[in-house]
């Protein structure tokens, strides 16, 4: 099955599709946790791009893209922990995680 001239294009298209799905989820869902899930999908799509370029570009032994992806995974984990902590904190104050109902910013 050779649809594309190079396998890299296939990986890039899958990553683009996953990024668009994550963006659609983050922009259309009402629940704050679903928005965070969408952001996680977008970060993972970017990671797939990094790894795919690392694999197919010249000099993979320099490990540049691989390191970028590993640090990106670590930062995404920190982002998920803080984001979900914020959602739980907001839920305690506003008694809801519905973004359409969260229209005030006071403590």
């Amino acid at each position, binding site marked *: 099955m*050779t649809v594309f*001239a190079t*396998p*890299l294009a*296939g*990986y*890039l*298209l*899958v990553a*683009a*599709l*996953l*990024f*668009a*799905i*994550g*963006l*659609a*989820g*983050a*922009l*259309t*869902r*009402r*629940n704050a*946790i*679903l928005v965070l*899930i969408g952001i*996680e*999908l977008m970060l*993972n799509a970017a*990671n797939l791009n990094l*790894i795919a370029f*690392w*694999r*197919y570009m*010249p000099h*993979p*032994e320099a*490990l540049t893209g*691989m*390191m970028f*992806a*590993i*640090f990106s*995974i*670590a*930062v995404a*984990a*920190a*982002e998920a922990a*803080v984001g*979900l*902590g914020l959602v*739980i904190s907001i*839920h*305690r104050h506003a008694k809801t*995680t*519905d973004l*359409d109902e969260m229209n005030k910013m006071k403590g």
Partner: protein
Amino acid sequence: MSFVFWLLAAITVAGGLAAVLLKNLVHCALALTVVFTGLALLFLQLDAQFAGFAQILVYVGAVAILVVFAILLTRSSETPKDGGVFSRTWGAGLVIAAAVFAVLGWAVLQSEAGLPHETSVPNVTVQQIGEALMGRYVLPLEIVALLLTAAMIGAVIVAMHEKGDAK
């Protein structure tokens, strides 16, 4: 471009669609786990063993569990009273996402001829990754360590019960 790649890509994209479309949030979290596992297998397909197993450890092992805990703690798995799970402005969001995908896909297909062709399998061992982390990338590693510590303390403080808070 093997059959395995297409199978993994189909599983990952189907999981992603399920994660943003399903009504019950617990089902969304399970679909998210499928996406993370599919991506880890795609990493293995790309000869990035270390990144693949790090993906499984961090995402399937930690982030998915964290998401499930947040869903259960906020009782978000109950569907809203008016039944809708999409926001009022879902049309605009869908249009923006479709436009982003159109631009990205167009860019990939346009530049396809200039992309590098199949190269030899990179022979990268975990020892090399460790030496790179402790040598050339030691400063970013320290910064990530600091970031993770700060994020952990920050998450605990943000989600902590306040004094005098009822319940």
